[in-house]
């Protein structure tokens, strides 16, 4: 005897439901590696005036110190992570804020590079879109 289409679809749906039920449901979480930079501190840096000690007072010890073109560069960074799971789909977005302070040979700020990407991070669960 042939089974009706409905009778065949229902067990399949039930199986799918069970798989989804075992899949852990929903979750939203975030992670931070370091603390955000204070914008006012960054904009208060004056080229040719602010010294290494001022920078260290504002931001603490650098995360790394580079030597580029015989100049010292202090590098500060922080990273943020946003995660969302919906049933069997998960997405994690990670981005970092970077602050580079270049010093002249007299220990005064020569150039500041600052990029803030962590604020633009989104919570997303759909893993297929760019």
């Amino acid at each position, binding site marked *: 005897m042939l089974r009706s289409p409905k009778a065949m679809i229902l067990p399949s749906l039930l*199986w799918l439901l069970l798989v989804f039920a075992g899949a852990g449901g929903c979750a939203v979480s975030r992670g931070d590696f370091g603390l955000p930079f204070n914008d006012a501190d960054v904009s208060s840096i004056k080229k040719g005036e602010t010294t290494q000690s001022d920078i260290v007072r504002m931001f603490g010890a650098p995360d790394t110190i580079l030597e580029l073109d015989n100049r010292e560069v202090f590098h500060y960074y922080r990273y943020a992570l946003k995660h969302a799971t919906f049933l069997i789909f*998960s997405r994690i977005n990670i981005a970092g804020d970077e602050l580079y302070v270049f010093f002249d040979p007299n220990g005064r700020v020569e150039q500041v590079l600052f990029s803030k990407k962590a604020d633009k991070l989104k919570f997303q669960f759909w893993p297929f879109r760019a």
Partner: protein
Amino acid sequence: MPGEERKRKTAAQRPICVVFALSLVLFGCTPIGWVRVSVNEPLTPDKVDFIVPGKTRWEDVIRRLGAPDEIDEVQRKIIADYFFYDGRDFWVDLGQPLNYFVQTQNIPHNFTLGGREIGVNTFEVAFDSSKIVQYACFVRGKEAARYVFWPLHAPDAENRPSLCR
């Protein structure tokens, strides 16, 4: 220091890579799943079109692209890297339905297929000692980011027409 040999950091020495790798390994307990882990927004070729090797200066690159994720100096050349990583993880446990049969519950019946693929699309700009762009290229490996069901098939070679400006 004169004569000092400077080496670039490996991926494992970069904190953002460690965060990325940890994020990707925290999943996998469900019978089926898709996980995507992205680091940064990717730089597309149209965003880096303005770079002309031999002409474009450090200041122009920084003004248009922002601070790099990493700056390094190798043999008096400054190298700026803009990171983009795209990890895609897919798995399916084909043995999962056997959980619902009493006869097979107590014997091992997991049979998981899938893949964990990481695409790299870091954009690297090298400057000479006068801070003029020497080369500006994407690294190989963007197309490695894909969801894989069948783990016995290796990815194809990079197929992008040009990686460099």
